[in-house]
C-alpha cells in the first residue's frame, strides 16, 4: 500500500470486491485516485511489484486488473460533488494526467479551476500518446466528462505562452497557475540519416495515429508512409506502443534496444503481449546509421551488436560493441522512441521562468513554486520521465501546496 504513489487503500478495496461490493470498492479507489478506469489500464503498477504475496512465494495479486474491474462495473452515475466555492480561481496549464488529477483535488477544495489545453481535445498524453487499444477513447472521454461535471472548466485550443501569457492569466484574476505540461518532446538521435523520409519519432508516429481519425485500426490504411518492415528503436512504453500499432497494421516489426530484455523499462506483462503479437525482439543492438535509397527513403538500418563489458561504478553493466558484428537490417521505416524531454516550452515565452540543465522547470523543493511567485509546477515537467501514477500523485501534492499558498 505504501508503494502506491497515490496512496490508494488497496487492502480495503480488495476486501470490498471480495464481499461483492463493487461500487464501494470504486468509491474507495476514487477517494485517492481521480482517474481509476485509466489507471486500471495503463498504470505501471508499482503495487504489484511490492505485493507481499510475492515474498511468500504465492501468486501476485493483479491489483491493476481489480482496479479496472471495479472502475468498469462499480461506476455510479456521475454525481456533482458538493463543494463550497471559495471565490478563488486557479489556472492549470495542460490537461494530462497530473493536470486533471490536480484540478479534481483543487475543485474538491472549493476552487474554480480552468484547464488550458493547447490541443483541440483534453487528455494530453492520454489522448495523443497512448494508442486506442490500450486506452479506449470512450473510457477517456467518460473520465473527462466526470471531471467536467465536478465543475472544472476546460479551455481547448489555448496555448499558454502564445495565446495568453502567464502575466495575462494573473491579470484575469487567477490566484495561482499550475504548470503541468508533462514531458512530450522527443530526444533526438545523433546517428547519421535521421532526416531521411520514413524516419519518425515515436511521439510523431503516435500523434499522427491518435489525433487524426479516431479508430484507424479497422481496415484503414495509415495516412502516412509506413513500410512493410518497420524497425522500432527503444525499450520504453512508447517504443512498445509504436511496435504494436505497426503490428496491427500487418507490418513486420523488429524492436531494437541496447540492453537485454530483462532490463527493459516496461512490465513483463506488456512485454509478453508484444511477443504474443509477433514482434521480433533484437536485444543488445545499437543502431549506427540509417541507410537510404536514391529517393531519400529509408532502405536499411546498420546496427552493431553489443555485449557486456566490465561492471562500471554505478552498478549497471557497461556495454561495449562486439568487434566485426555490424549487420544491416532490411527495413523501410524506422521509428525512434528513445525517450522524452520535459516540455518546458512555456519558459520560451516567459524568460522569468528558469529551467534546470536537464530541461526541467526549476522548482523550489519545499513550496513547489517555480521562479515566478504564484506559478507552481507538477508532473513530468518537473520530474522528467516518470510513470503515470507518479505524475498524478505530484499533481495532487501540488494542489495541496497551492491550497496552502493561496490561503496564506
Amino acid at each position, binding site marked *: 500500500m505504501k508503494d502506491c504513489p497515490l496512496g490508494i487503500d488497496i487492502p480495503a478495496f480488495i476486501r470490498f470486491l471480495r464481499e461483492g461490493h463493487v461500487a464501494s470498492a470504486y468509491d474507495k479507489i476514487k477517494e485517492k485516485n481521480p482517474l481509476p478506469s485509466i489507471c486500471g489500464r495503463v498504470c505501471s503498477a508499482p503495487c504489484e511489484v511490492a505485493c507481499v504475496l510475492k515474498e511468500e512465494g504465492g501468486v501476485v495479486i493483479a491489483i491493476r486488473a481489480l482496479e479496472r474491474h471495479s472502475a468498469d462495473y462499480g461506476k455510479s452515475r456521475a454525481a456533482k460533488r458538493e463543494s463550497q466555492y471559495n471565490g478563488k480561481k486557479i489556472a492549470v496549464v495542460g490537461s494530462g494526467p497530473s493536470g486533471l488529477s490536480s484540478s479534481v483535488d483543487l475543485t474538491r477544495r472549493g476552487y474554480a479551476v480552468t484547464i488550458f489545453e493547447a490541443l483541440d481535445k483534453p487528455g494530453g498524453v492520454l489522448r495523443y500518446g497512448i494508442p486506442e487499444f490500450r486506452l479506449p477513447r470512450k473510457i477517456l472521454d467518460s473520465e473527462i466528462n466526470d471531471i467536467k461535471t465536478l465543475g472544472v472548466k476546460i479551455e481547448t485550443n489555448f496555448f499558454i505562452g502564445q495565446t495568453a501569457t502567464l502575466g495575462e492569466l494573473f491579470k484575469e484574476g487567477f490566484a495561482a497557475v499550475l504548470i503541468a505540461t508533462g514531458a512530450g*518532446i522527443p530526444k533526438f538521435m545523433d546517428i547519421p540519416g535521421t532526416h531521411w523520409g520514413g524516419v519518425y519519432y515515436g511521439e510523431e508516429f503516435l500523434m*499522427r495515429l491518435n489525433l487524426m481519425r479516431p479508430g484507424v485500426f479497422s481496415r484503414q490504411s495509415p495516412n502516412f508512409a509506413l513500410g512493410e518492415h518497420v524497425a522500432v528503436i527503444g525499450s520504453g512504453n512508447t517504443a512498445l506502443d509504436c511496435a504494436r500499432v505497426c503490428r496491427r497494421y500487418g507490418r513486420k516489426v523488429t524492436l531494437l534496444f541496447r540492453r537485454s530484455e530483462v532490463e527493459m523499462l516496461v512490465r513483463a506483462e506488456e512485454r509478453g503481449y508484444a511477443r504474443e503479437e509477433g514482434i521480433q525482439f533484437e536485444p543488445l543492438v545499437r543502431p549506427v546509421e540509417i541507410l537510404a535509397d536514391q529517393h531519400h527513403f529509408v532502405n536499411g538500418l546498420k546496427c552493431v551488436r553489443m555485449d557486456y563489458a566490465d561492471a562500471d561504478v554505478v552498478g549497471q553493466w557497461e556495454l561495449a560493441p562486439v568487434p566485426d558484428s555490424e549487420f544491416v537490417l532490411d527495413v523501410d521505416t524506422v521509428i525512434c522512441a528513445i525517450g522524452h524531454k520535459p516540455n518546458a516550452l512555456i519558459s520560451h515565452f516567459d524568460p522569468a521562468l528558469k529551467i534546470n540543465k536537464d530541461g526541467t522547470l526549476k522548482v523550489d523543493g519545499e513550496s513547489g513554486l517555480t521562479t515566478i511567485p504564484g506559478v507552481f509546477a507538477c508532473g513530468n515537467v518537473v520530474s522528467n520521465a516518470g510513470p503515470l501514477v507518479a505524475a498524478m500523485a505530484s499533481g495532487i501534492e501540488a494542489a495541496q501546496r497551492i491550497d496552502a499558498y493561496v490561503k496564506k
Partner: protein
Amino acid sequence: MSFKVVNKLILAKDIKRLDILAPNIARKFQPGHYVSVCPEEGDERVPLSVIDADPVKGTISLIFLEEGQTTTKLGTVAIGESVFSVLGPLGVPARIEKTGTVVCIATGIWTAQILPICRGYRKTGNKVIGIIGAKTKKTLMLEAQMRLSCNTIYMTTNDGSYERRGLATDVLREFISKNEVNLVYAIGSADMMQAVCGLTRDKNIPTRVQLSPVMVDCMGMCGSCRVKVGGKTVLACIDGPEFDGHKVDFEDFHIRIKSFEELDEWRSRKSQLNPKKNESKTLTKFLSDFLKN
C-alpha cells in the same frame, strides 16, 4: 469556442482566403505568426501563416492553396460555418527593425506569407522593394495589396503572360548588382530560397527565410518539422519559422519536404484510398471480359 468563417474569397485558381473569427489570436497577432488549423474533427492539422488580423472584429485572415486533402476540405467551408479548431498564434514573430533597404521576395502561394512582413517593414520606416513571381498571370495574387505595402514592386511570370518573363531570382540578381541592399527576406519553395541565399551569400547581404516543413502538432512535441540550422537540429514550429538563410541546410530541408510530397502522390492513388471502388472496377472488368469471351 467556435471558429466561425465570416468571409471567404477566391483569389486565384485553387487559392482561397478565409476570415475566421478568433479573437484570442487576433489580439496577439504580429507579422510572422502562424496558426494550426484543423477543418474537421480527426483531420490533419495544417500550419497556415496569418496574413492579417483585425483585433476589433476579432478576425484573422488565412490564405491557402488547395493542394492536399485537408486544405481542399478547408476550402469547402462556407461562410457562416465553423472550423473545428484554430490554434495560435504560433511561432516566433518576424524580427522587424529599421535597417534601410529591404528586399522582400516571394513566389507563388508564398506571396501571401510575405505580405504581413512587407507591411511590418514599411511601418517601421524601411524602404521596401517587393519582388513577387508566379507561374502565369492567373496565379499571380495580392497584386494590389503588395503595391500598397511596397515602395517599388517587380513582378515576374514564368511564361511571360504578365509584366516580365522569367524568375523572381533573376530580378533579385539584377537588383542587388545595381543597388545597395541591407536585408533580403525570402519566402518560397526550397529551391527558390536556396537560390536567393546563394545570390546574397556572395554579396554578404543578411538574408532571412521562412521555412514551412511538415508539422503535426505545431507545439514542438512531434519533431516532424526538424530542420538543420547552423549544424544543429531545431524545430521550425517553435524556433521558427524565421531563420537566418545563410545557416539553413537546404539539402536537408529538401529531403524532409520531399519525403512527404511523395506521400501525397501515394495517397491520391485511388486504390490506396478507396479499396472498395477498386473491387467494383475489377468486377465490371471481369464481367466485360466474361461477356467478350
